[in-house]
């Protein structure tokens, strides 16, 4: 009978044990977002009964940046307890297999999902429109939809395909709404100082007149992988928040006269509070710095 030396068996056994530990660690990493040490500079909300929400954009990479930003989002929640999140598109980059939904959405945002914080997604150009059937995106099976939170009506649009049906629907819904605040959000920014994409002029031609005539004062978008607050255009404040995982560093044209505030050196997200006639916003970087903040007072009666 052939025998194997004890030392070889011991070495093999050791290698097997190491492989098992490695596998366990990998699984653990998959199951939980990494813990970051940087503290958040998020300020607590000002109003007691205000509506508080998170703005996430261009997030679905499944990479380290997304996980670190997600960690900051959860840290922010401890100080600024937002009740829901809006996603301005590109919710999943690349393939959309079940494991991608896990890696690019369910695992990084697990603390929020476990805390029953609903996400309301809009579709980006990287998203399969059939994401609308994915329950955790709360799209009600539709490419575009609306929902109400107290005095605020949100309109999640599909800016990838602004056909006549959607225009008509938007026009009707905007007219119909008596809410104090009407907040559309969608993927493509109507105004942008981005060097790669820039403003979506076509889309602007069609939907901005509807916003103006129906008293919209704040709009959120993504697509550009940075943060930008545009100087008010026709009385409307436009935010681009497309850097919650992807980053296009240095893409903001510094010479743009439209920019009120821009941030393109780190990933970011926003927390927003609506307190009666006042909207307060804070923009937080991947490492927890508050890079922009301010308040907007509603002017339409």
């Amino acid at each position: 009978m052939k025998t194997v030396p004890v030392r070889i068996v011991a070495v093999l056994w050791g290698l097997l044990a190491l492989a098992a530990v490695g596998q366990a660690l990998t699984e653990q990493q998959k199951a939980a977002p990494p813990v970051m040490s940087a503290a958040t500079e998020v300020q607590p909300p000002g109003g007691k009964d205000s509506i508080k929400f998170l703005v996430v954009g261009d997030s679905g990479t499944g990479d380290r940046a997304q996980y670190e930003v997600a960690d900051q989002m959860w840290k922010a929640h401890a100080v600024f307890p937002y009740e829901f999140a809006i996603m301005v598109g590109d919710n999943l980059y690349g393939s959309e297999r079940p494991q991608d939904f896990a890696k690019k959405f369910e695992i990084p945002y697990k603390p929020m999902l476990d805390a029953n914080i609903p996400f309301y997604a809009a579709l980006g150009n990287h998203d399969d429109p059939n994401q609308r059937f994915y329950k955790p995106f709360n799209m009600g099976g539709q490419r575009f939809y609306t929902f109400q939170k107290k005095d605020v009506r949100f309109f999640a649009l599909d800016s990838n395909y602004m056909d006549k049906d959607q225009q008509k629907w938007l026009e009707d819904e905007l007219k119909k709404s008596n809410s104090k605040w009407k907040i559309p959000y969608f993927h493509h920014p109507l105004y942008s100082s981005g060097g790669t994409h820039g403003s979506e002029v076509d889309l602007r031609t069609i939907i901005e007149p509807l916003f103006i005539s129906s008293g919209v004062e704040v709009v959120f978008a993504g697509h550009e992988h940075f943060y930008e607050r545009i100087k008010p255009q026709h009385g409307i404040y436009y935010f681009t928040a497309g850097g919650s995982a992807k980053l296009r560093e240095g893409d903001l044209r510094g010479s743009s006269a439209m920019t009120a505030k821009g941030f393109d050196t780190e990933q970011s997200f926003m927390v927003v509070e609506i307190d009666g006639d006042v909207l307060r916003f804070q923009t937080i970087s991947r490492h927890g710095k508050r890079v922009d903040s301010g308040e907007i007072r509603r002017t339409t009666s």
Partner: protein
Amino acid sequence: MTRIPLAALAVLAVIAAGCSNTDTAEPRTLAGVADQAPRAPQNKTAAQPAPPPPLTQSDAGVNAQGAATLEFKRRIDAYIKIHNEADGKVASLKKTDDPKEISDRERALADMIMTLRAGAKPGEIFAPEYQPYFIKIVQDDFKQRSAADRKALIVELPAKMKVDINTIYPTTIPLATFPPLLLRKLPDLPSDLEYRIVGRSLILRDVKANLIVDILRDVVPTIPS
């Protein structure tokens, strides 16, 4: 002055009426619904209007644009019949927590349509004799845009991507935004279909099945480098 025959105008009016989807204007049951619930448009695929009859000799007076639109609509309706037939043969999709259900259903619907349309060839919907009409619409639209706008649009288009009729649109390739002003100039589509541009081709895509239904190649102008 160019004169348009009255008959042609009448046909165009009928087409316009047939193409415009006004059912989204239906009142929605909002007042009694809890404020927090998402509200969305009605699904329009359930009841399709009966397809118009094929062009006949009596339509000979229709101008080229009217004829192209009419024939296009007839072919779209024929496709939607197949889509609905396939849709009825696979398990229906409800909102789900499980993304696998979504992708499985999408694939099953696509497979069923591919089977029902086996042997489909480019030009099944973009009828060859009317393709110049669609090409002109797209090219005129691009001509009217500034160089910067044209470039911005073209840069976003997925390039180097091989597409073919009756195949799945690659799920890892982004769907480029369709220019809304161009969309206004093309004939309306039912909600289960959409136009997309891939490289220099205009495609018709089945939204629920993620399937390329037809292709019109070399439509988008190139930009000089």
